């Protein structure tokens, strides 16, 4: 069963906005309020809105990958982000920074904490979508 036309349109419009916003919150999290968790929640809310407006099948389609895979990848990314330091002979989770100086544009801070935050983001999105989609599908059956 689909929601109202108005909600569907709103969802289609708000989805990219919310996703963009979530990415924004993810990337600025190290310096300003935000971070992987908040960003992941916002992304999850975006897909939940889409789910409410449309249905589980379309939401899955939109998501592209099974949320369980996102969940696993997120956990893997977050865990793995702590590993490179071990190869360098330092403790687990020692941050490594690769400031990349792009000529003309300034510095881009790639780092293991960023990878970690991305893992958090993927996990949160994957986990919440796993739950929400499963619940919704169970209801439809």
């Amino acid at each position, binding site marked *: 069963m689909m929601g109202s036309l108005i909600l569907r349109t709103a969802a289609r419009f708000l989805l990219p906005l919310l996703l963009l916003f979530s990415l924004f919150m993810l990337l600025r999290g190290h310096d300003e309020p935000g971070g992987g968790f908040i960003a992941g929640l*916002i992304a999850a809310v975006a897909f939940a809105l889409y789910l409410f407006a449309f249905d589980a099948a379309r939401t899955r389609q939109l998501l592209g990958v099974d949320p369980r895979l996102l969940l696993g990848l997120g956990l893997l990314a977050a865990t793995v982000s702590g590993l490179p330091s071990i190869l360098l002979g330092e403790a687990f989770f020692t941050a490594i920074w690769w400031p990349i100086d792009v000529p003309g544009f300034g510095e881009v801070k790639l780092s293991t904490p960023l990878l970690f935050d991305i893992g958090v983001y993927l996990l949160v999105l994957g986990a919440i979508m796993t739950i929400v989609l499963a619940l919704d599908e169970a209801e439809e059956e």
Partner: protein
Amino acid sequence: MEWVVTLTFIMLALSLLLAFVRLVLGPSLPDRVVALELLALITVAFSVVYAVHVDVAHFLDVALVLALTGFMAAVGFSRFLERGGTRDE
């Protein structure tokens, strides 16, 4: 400026109380949800005014997130109702 902020806070606090009254009184679930939405909005307002009051712009971020996602609760509740949840609440 100080008294302006104070006055603003007074009005917002009053609004908070009034919205709470509706939330408690209901009588229907949609009535409560309306009150909840209003509460979310007042929270946005509080954050903004407080940011002004303490001169810390970061609190606007709170308002920003809430402004963008606060409506989801209402959407959720309405879905509950339309999917046949108990109506006389």
